[in-house]
């Protein structure tokens, strides 16, 4: 007896799909796992060939990531016994900790700039998208096309003008400058995505709110915003991922105060030889905020991406 169903896949196709997903997951996860593991290896384990899967874990990479170290004479080392567990780790290489590295600062810059620009993109994007969706704006279609056209070339193509402009305006290597830049790049995506979401919310809800005695703005934030939450969450994730991972502009426009983590991590390589575990540790820590943010919003993200695909 064979039963055929439109919605229920057959056992064989289920098995096939499962295998495919597992293979794909392996392909994408192995490099990630590699980086995370390398962060806990000693420098010699990290570069050994064939690569070591089983190794003795150490926090050396993390200690090196967060500190700067100096080589000291044997007399000095003998006179000053190590005080902490991280002191002990560096003593093996006849070094002492001279102070914290710049990684914490750079990481904080990434947080401020990444989340700042995401917030600003979403804030401006939501207002603009609402206006485009609800009001009669002269030349609305042309304006929307213009907004989209800012994405029609790679942003880095305008790097030189922006570099000169920022130097003139005093925005180079400032948090504000980087927030504005990433917002500028993200805003077109935010407006377009959010407009799609807001278009899907029937006008009647706002009209009901107006009738119920609310002002236009109250109707917007009490009725439209909660319903656009899904769209806002998924748009925020896209914006954050871009701003968080952006490298080229960060290298070009920041060097000190406002430098983000992406351009900083490679510079670790230069300090005291090829310190792969430290780089891997930096990369691992750097991954976490976006990962946590995405996991927190993943329900919204899944619903958000498929939202509006089917007209009710």
């Amino acid at each position, binding site marked *: 007896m064979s039963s055929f169903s439109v919605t229920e896949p057959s056992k064989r196709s289920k098995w096939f799909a499962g295998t495919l997903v597992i293979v794909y997951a392996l392909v994408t996860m192995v490099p990630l796992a590699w980086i995370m593991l390398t962060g806990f290896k000693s420098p010699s384990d990290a570069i050994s060939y064939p690569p070591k899967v089983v190794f003795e874990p150490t926090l050396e990479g993390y200690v090196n990531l967060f500190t700067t170290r100096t080589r000291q004479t044997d007399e000095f080392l003998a006179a000053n016994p190590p005080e902490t567990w991280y002191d002990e780790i560096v003593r093996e290489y006849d070094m002492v900790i001279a102070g914290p590295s710049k990684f914490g600062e750079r990481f904080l810059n990434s947080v401020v700039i990444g989340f700042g620009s995401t917030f600003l993109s979403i804030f401006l994007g939501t207002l603009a998208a609402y206006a485009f969706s609800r009001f009669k704006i002269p030349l609305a279609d042309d304006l929307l096309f213009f907004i989209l056209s800012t994405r029609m070339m790679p942003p880095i193509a305008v790097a030189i003008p922006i570099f000169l402009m920022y130097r003139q305006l005093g925005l180079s290597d400032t948090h504000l400058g980087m927030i504005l830049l990433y917002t500028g790049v993200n805003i077109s995506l935010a407006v377009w995505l959010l407009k799609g979401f807001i278009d899907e919310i*029937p006008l009647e*809800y706002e*009209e*009901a*709110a107006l*009738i*119920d*005695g609310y002002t236009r703005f*109250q109707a917007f934030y009490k009725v439209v915003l909660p319903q656009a939450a899904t769209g806002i969450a998924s748009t925020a994730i896209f914006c954050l991922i871009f701003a968080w991972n952006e490298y080229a502009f960060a290298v070009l426009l920041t060097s000190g105060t406002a430098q983000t983590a992406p351009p900083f991590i490679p510079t670790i390589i230069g300090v005291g030889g090829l310190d792969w575990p430290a780089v891997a540790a930096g990369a691992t820590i750097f991954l976490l905020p976006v990962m946590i943010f995405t996991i927190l919003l993943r329900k919204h993200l899944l619903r958000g991406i498929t939202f509006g695909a089917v007209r009710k």
Partner: protein
Amino acid sequence: MAQIVIKNIRKDFGDFNAVKESSFTIEDGEFFMLLGPSGCGKTTTLRMIAGLELPTSGEIYLDGEEISQLPPSKRDIAFVFQMFALYPHLNVRRNLSYPLVSQGMARRDVKAKVEEVAQILGITDILNRPVGGLSGGDRQRVALGRAIVREPKAFMMDEPLGALDAEFREHMSEELRALHDRMGATTVYVTHDQLEAMQMGDKIVVMNNAVVEQFGTPQQIYDKPATMFVADFIGSPSMNFLRFDGTVADGADSVSLDGQVMQIPRHMQGAQGKLVFGVRPEHVTLSDDGAYRGEVLASEYLGTTQIITLDTPNGELKARIDSAQVASVGETVGLGFNPGTVTLFDEGSGRALRSELNDEVLAHG
């Protein structure tokens, strides 16, 4: 509770004229129907009263106060939407409290009022449910509840039964009418369903192509149509139109149809040329003799009555007769018309000629 006066109201959307200068009065406590085919401007009119659209010109008076340019929140008018428009992110209780919270009512009073309304509508058991999973009828009740909870001056309803299935609509329309009678609130109700309008309305405005065609009680609209459109739109089957070339003199009480003299209500308006003899199917009688004759084309059995379709010298005609009466297809029968019920129309303008029958109605239309 309030009287609503609409004066020369007009609405343009760009080049499109949605409502042409219209005027009518909705008396305090009336269940008032705005009836017409889709796109006739009835919903736009309703939305202008509620404040969701601003009229291009004209005035709206609510209890003597001119409100046409006020925002909806300042009008104290409730609106029931066709698709209900319940806030999907709130549960039933919070949906019902929303209009009260906006007025800054104290939480305890809000709770009491919501409970009271829920009691009236019989929805106390679903107060804490999200609105997403409710049945059509319950959604409808919640939407009504949200409208009545703040005791507004008037209710606007935009085809509130349109989204329900036929069986339930019947039930809900009775419930609605009962609710109105209990509260005595002025209600303006938009529908394209003439049966619903006749059933529920105290007064009906029939609109077509952005103009008010006729304004009156269901009886007036049905028995004394002011235009051919109204005569055709109201009633099922609709009024028969027998077209003829002829003359009606001022004061005449008969007209010649295909050489036969037909009695009509005494006319106060003469006309000649292309005219239309309008008679409702139930006012047509079939007999063996009779000089004006028609051939039976078909019959539809409807239980107590049957609808007979006949071919006459002036076009097709439908008669509603007792189902006991025999009329076989192919047979030629004599036709009689109840003389007091006939309306003559001028085909060019589509308007009814004034007669004893409709004088009173046409005078203010």
